[in-house]
């Protein structure tokens, strides 16, 4: 019970997505989930043990680490992955509701329960907006919490019980920074994919609507 669950969830969502939606699933799976599990997790694994301060005062390291890393990058990354995958469940629920209704009435009520039309279109659009919103929220959170996307080699700390301003050294700052930039780049790519899918769907269905009205007027 771990990331395999998310992977199964995303594969389930894939069935009811548009072409761009499937590219989004592939990007999330290959460039975010896989990179997280295979590489990023190990970089941040011993961040606390390897955080060293130039002092022997017990408790100073703990307090300084807590001050500079209120929530670890890797936890924020994991939360972002989970939150960003969840809105797609709305679509799955809606399709399940449609299929349930058909079964209940023992009649074919929809041309195809999985096709994006009618109420399902609105659910899909809402899920896209939520996904994009959550991505932006997490990027802003990262930026605000860590004053940008840079990770310094050295931080100065003077919180009690540290007796004076103490130098503290972060482990693997360059590697962490590279992966952080990678995270930001893939998030931006996903935002772009979501926005293009949103515009594509709105454009497609407005054209359809306009053509139908035009045909009705002609008749």
């Amino acid at each position: 019970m771990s990331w395999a669950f998310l992977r199964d969830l995303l594969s389930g969502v894939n069935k009811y997505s548009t072409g761009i939606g499937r590219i989004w699933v592939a990007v999330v799976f290959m460039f975010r989930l896989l990179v997280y599990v295979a590489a990023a997790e190990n970089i941040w694994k011993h961040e606390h043990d390897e955080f060293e301060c130039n002092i022997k005062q017990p408790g100073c390291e703990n307090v300084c680490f807590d001050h500079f890393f209120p929530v670890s990058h890797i936890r924020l990354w994991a939360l972002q992955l989970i939150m960003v995958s969840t809105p797609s469940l709305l679509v799955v629920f809606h399709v399940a509701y449609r299929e349930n209704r058909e079964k209940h009435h023992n009649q074919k009520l929809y041309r195809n329960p999985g096709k994006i039309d009618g109420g399902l279109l609105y659910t899909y659009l809402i899920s896209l907006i939520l996904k994009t919103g959550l991505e932006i929220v997490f990027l802003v959170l990262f930026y605000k919490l860590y004053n940008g996307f840079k990770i310094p080699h050295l931080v100065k700390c003077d919180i009690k019980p540290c007796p004076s301003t103490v130098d503290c050294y972060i482990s693997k700052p360059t590697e962490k920074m590279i992966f952080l930039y990678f995270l930001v780049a893939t998030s931006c790519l996903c935002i772009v994919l979501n926005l293009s899918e949103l515009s594509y769907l709105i454009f497609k269905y407005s054209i359809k609507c306009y053509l139908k009205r035009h045909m009705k007027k002609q008749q």
Partner: protein
Amino acid sequence: MDWGALHTILGGVNKHSTSIGKIWLTVLFIFRIMILVVAAERVWGDEQDDFVCNTLQPGCRNVCYDHFFPISHIRLWALQLIFVSTPALLVAMHVAYRRHEKKRQFRKGDQKCEFKDIEEIRKQRFRIEGSLWWTYTSSIFFRIVFEAVFMYAFYFMYDGFRMPRLMKCNAWPCPNTVDCFVSRPTEKTVFTIFMIAVSSICILLNVAELCYLLTKFFLRRSKKAGNSKQQPNHENKEETKQNEMNELISDSCQNTVIGFSS
């Protein structure tokens, strides 16, 4: 045997749940079990190793850690998730019992049995009525009770939901009042608040599901009472059938109209 096994067991119950029950199950798996396994366990992973006390006295650190964390947050959450998932097993057992009875009837060659083969019985989805309603409702009630008990236990044991940075300890063999520092207190507070928030959402979902089931029950009862006071049964059945047909036709018309307009 891990959380995956729980997923297998509860997945079977999902088929017979209400819509709110299915949402509850999704919230449980994604926002509680997954977060616990993927994130929270790492945050609490080094809690004892990085619990540092300002003393060299051997044993003092161990004693102070034990005093302030009688049972770790992670273990409490794991217990809470197990207890909260267990009432669903009552429903699973009841459904299995009903299936067993139906299979027995089928094998006897009972003419009342409407199934064509064993496979249909296995795949059948039971409606929540009769004794199954009572089992289902009591399972939701127990879920709410367990959630509330664990949330209170949390609050009581840790004096609120905040993790302090510094704790003062003077348990023996510490020579005097000693400063002890917890590792990652802010991150732990954030995750504690997150888990408490999701527990509250789950309690609300359970309460909503309970209200929904009770409302349905009383509506059904009043309908039955209303029907028995009116005309004889066979005339009523014709009317209700006609009403259902009308509903179906109007529903399907509406859907085709919506389908075409979009």
